[in-house]
């Protein structure tokens, strides 16, 4: 399936990950003001079960905006869904960037890793995660509204990609809203008390204790 990724010729090759043939630059598709994402490339493995939208730019001389198709060398490790990569199993696979005629323009090799823990992050208004994850317990006031996102880790490495997850909160203390931002929910607390937010993905559960103070 062709991914309609319009790559700009002569793109900025100083950001993102350079292709093996030095003719492209690839990075996760980022929120506009997520600076670390904009500057970083594919600098970590993709989590098993996570989806990663890819931004590919062809930087070959004189090449302007070809339509690009993605192809994974090992479909059992990496699946291609349109312009997204999906981690299927641990390992690594090259991802080819090809033009409409099937000619390979460049490729990168990505690793896929199994997460061993989950962390919860508060998102800024621009959709970027804060620098550090939330602790096990937080205190809020009635009416507080914050957007949260779940991220996968393997050891000290924060893995790439957005995980599909089930979110639940004690109904008494607040409400979860799905505003449509990938792998995140908006939590709006209303009633003083103590409650738990639980996020379940791939057999793992991450909990956050929320104390709503009057």
């Amino acid at each position, binding site marked *: 399936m062709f991914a309609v990724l319009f790559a700009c010729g002569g793109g900025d090759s100083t950001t993102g990950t350079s292709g*093996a*043939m*030095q*003719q492209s630059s690839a990075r996760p598709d980022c929120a506009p003001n997520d600076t670390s994402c904009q500057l970083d490339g594919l600098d970590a493995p993709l989590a098993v079960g996570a989806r990663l939208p890819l931004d590919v730019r062809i930087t*070959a*001389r004189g*090449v302007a905006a070809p339509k690009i198709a993605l192809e994974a*060398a*090992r479909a059992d*490790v990496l699946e291609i869904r349109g312009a997204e990569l999906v981690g299927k199993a641990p*390992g*690594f*696979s*090259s991802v*080819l960037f*090809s*033009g409409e005629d*099937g*000619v*390979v*323009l460049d*490729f990168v*090799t990505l690793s896929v890793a199994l997460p061993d823990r989950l962390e919860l992050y508060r998102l800024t208004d621009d959709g970027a995660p804060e620098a550090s994850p939330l602790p096990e317990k937080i205190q809020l006031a009635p009416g507080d509204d914050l957007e949260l996102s779940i991220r996968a880790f393997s050891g000290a490495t924060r893995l790439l990609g957005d995980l599909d997850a089930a979110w639940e909160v004690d109904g008494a203390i607040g409400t979860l809203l799905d505003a449509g931002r990938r792998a995140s929910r908006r939590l709006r607390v209303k009633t003083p008390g103590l409650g738990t937010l639980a996020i379940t993905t791939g057999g793992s559960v991450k909990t956050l204790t929320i104390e709503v103070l009057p």
Partner: protein
Amino acid sequence: MSAPRLFALSIVALLVTLAATGCDKPRPPEKHPTFAPRTSAPPLAITEYVEDRPRGLRSIRLTEGVAMALECWDESGAPCLLEGSTLGDERVASFRRAYGDFDAVSVSGRGTQRAYLNRAVFVVVARQPGEAKLVVQTGKGPVTIDVTVFPQKR
């Protein structure tokens, strides 16, 4: 034997030897297809090209899941045509033509005749462990390369 006679016999012997070996005619330069890798392997993987020309052996060795780009020239030094190249078992590895952002190469320059041709690059994609035969059509005849794919270390 006198010195002049000995010298004359030596000259005759030398001429006979030269005539027998054909040293009086210049040998043409060796011509053969040439392949050169254009990418390197990521960590924990291998992408290697090995050739033994006297025995006519060429091989590409890859770790499963990785791709490797190579450039090709035919026996006259011109970029290979690549059209019609095949890889025997696509379950093991795939052949893909590739685009190389390289300057065109001049392949002739006699008098007023000169041609600048696009360089010929192709990619071999390792899918699963095994062996397969890659037949590259150079434009001056096919060249067979053994492709071996090794498993990823788990």
